[in-house]
């Protein structure tokens, strides 16, 4: 069922709160992967607040949908959502990155309820997701597996190895996303290695490919629902996004891949977010 106007309003409210939490954690943690956390937010919000079949009270429930954040450095933004969903006491997030905390920059499934795999080393998540989806088929389980990758991450050969095998096993219970913000750490993806044309690449590997605006909930919802109807192959949803989305001084600037905020910068960032949603 397509998203209603109310759905979209609700998701936007959530996305706004999550983005603000991302800014707050970046401030208290003394730094964080804020750019990519802001670009992935709408994809994760749509999944967690609309589509995933999950129960935060039963994080290890066998039949839950699985969500693998292959771009594990987005752990900051992911933790903000898991905390808000009630997987753990969200006041714990003030210890993000602090000594002895369950939260490192990259989330650890042994320490963070709701985290289905310990990622952070890029190029692992799609393989894990393929394994989970394959496992579901072998066990006759109905759960779906979702995986969110960075675009720079696609440089890793292991992504393409997993893509080949995912298509070979016709994993129509697997939906993956690319957070296509066009930036990695050292600069724009197209100036370092040139990744385009991603649609053709994944299609030629046997995937259903959908291309959407990764900040438009109608489009995100439509693509997720479409993927659920595709038979006999996995779906790759390539989401055009903006790194640092909603914070004007961070947007599209690769230097904000990782950064720290002083209180002025934090306040400015929070105001930008309010502003953005006031206009929306």
């Amino acid at each position, binding site marked *: 069922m397509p998203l209603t106007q109310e759905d979209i309003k609700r998701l936007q409210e959530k996305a706004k709160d999550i983005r603000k939490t991302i800014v707050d954690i970046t401030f208290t943690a003394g730094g964080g992967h804020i750019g990519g956390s802001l670009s992935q937010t709408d994809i994760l919000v749509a999944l967690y607040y609309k589509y995933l079949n999950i129960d935060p009270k039963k994080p290890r429930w066998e039949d839950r949908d699985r969500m693998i954040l292959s771009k594990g450095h987005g752990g900051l933004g992911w933790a903000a959502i898991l905390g808000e969903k009630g997987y753990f006491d969200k006041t714990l997030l003030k210890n993000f990155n602090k000594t002895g905390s369950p939260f490192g920059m990259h989330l650890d499934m042994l320490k963070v309820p709701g985290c289905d795999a310990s990622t952070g080393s890029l190029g692992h998540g799609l393989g894990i997701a393929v394994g989970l989806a394959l496992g579901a088929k072998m066990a006759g389980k109905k759960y779906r597996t979702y995986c969110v990758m960075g675009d720079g991450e696609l440089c890793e050969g292991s992504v393409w190895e997993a893509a080949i095998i995912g298509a070979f096993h016709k994993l129509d219970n697997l939906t993956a996303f690319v957070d296509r913000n066009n930036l990695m*750490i050292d600069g724009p993806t197209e100036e370092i290695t040139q990744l385009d044309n991603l649609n053709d690449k994944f299609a030629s590997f046997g995937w259903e490919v959908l291309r959407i605006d990764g900040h438009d909930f109608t489009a995100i919802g439509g693509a997720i629902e479409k993927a659920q109807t595709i038979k006999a192959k996995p779906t790759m949803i390539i989401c055009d996004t903006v790194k640092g989305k909603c914070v004007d001084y961070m947007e599209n600037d690769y230097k904000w891949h990782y950064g720290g905020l002083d209180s002025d910068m934090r306040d400015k960032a929070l105001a930008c977010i309010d502003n953005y949603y006031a206009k929306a």
Partner: protein
Amino acid sequence: MAEGMTWSIEEADKLTQAEVYGRVLTQLGEKDPKIIAMTADLAKSTKIGNFGQKFPERFINMGIAENSLFSVAAGLALAGYRPVVSTFAVFAALRSAEFVRTDICYQNLDVKIIATHAGISFGQAGSTHHCTEDIAVMRSFANMTVIVPADGIETGNAVAAAMDWPGPVYIRIGRGFEPPVNTTADYGFQIGKAVTMRDGKDITLICCGVTVLQAVRAAKILETQGLSVRIINMHTIKPIDKEVILKAVMETRRIVTIEEHNVLCGLGSAVAEVIVESGKACAFTKLGIPDQYVIVGYPEDLYNHYKIDADGIVEAVSALMGREIEADENWDDET
């Protein structure tokens, strides 16, 4: 520039190891047009980008593709170039281990690997970024030389020396700023020759990397307790300086090794191999990260947590001083 030195950086003692490395490599690049610098989207983080700014035509950023980073480096070496490759230690030593071993070490190619963010220097990042296994892995590769510099200045020395050393070299450095142990660079750094930082007759501390500073601090405390402590900076793990270890066995009979690495298979194990093969009695303890995955935290907190800081060393030394050792028959002949 001091005599015999191929690099010179002002106030190298105020820079991180990586910052010194980036600048030294750039200086070496001016003299050697065969040097090619390579990374996988970590130009800024590893500071190899410093070279890239000066010599963009000799700089290759692979994107986030560590395995090909090492195979392409091997190809460039076969084509007559001298690749210097940087990424985080966890990717160089673990993700790409077989590429390093088969493409570079087996073929004995002239590729230098400078791996940053090693050990627990990126402690806040979590287990996927910690690397407490690299010394173990790299020293098990035939043909590989393994160096763990104590500070920025020693990093400069190690990088310069590596460029004059045949075959593959792995140099392990950290992430942030750690206070220096050296004040000048011309102390005669040589690959394979440990530096005795201080002489002593009661006990020997053998350390490398960030633990050298901790050992120096510990020795000051132990001195006030009346102990005469020898400190050996074993910057080269392979080939290891056997002579200096055997001398310490004979002269102090008590040895503690300290490393920011899994206590298995690293510096302590390399030293233990030498001691055991000597057949001489020696009270011995290895300090390091226990055989576990490290918790999240700031490096200095973690040094304390895992007892590889000055306090932890003092505690271990006190325990070891109380251990009885049985002198073998030839005790006197040995010394």
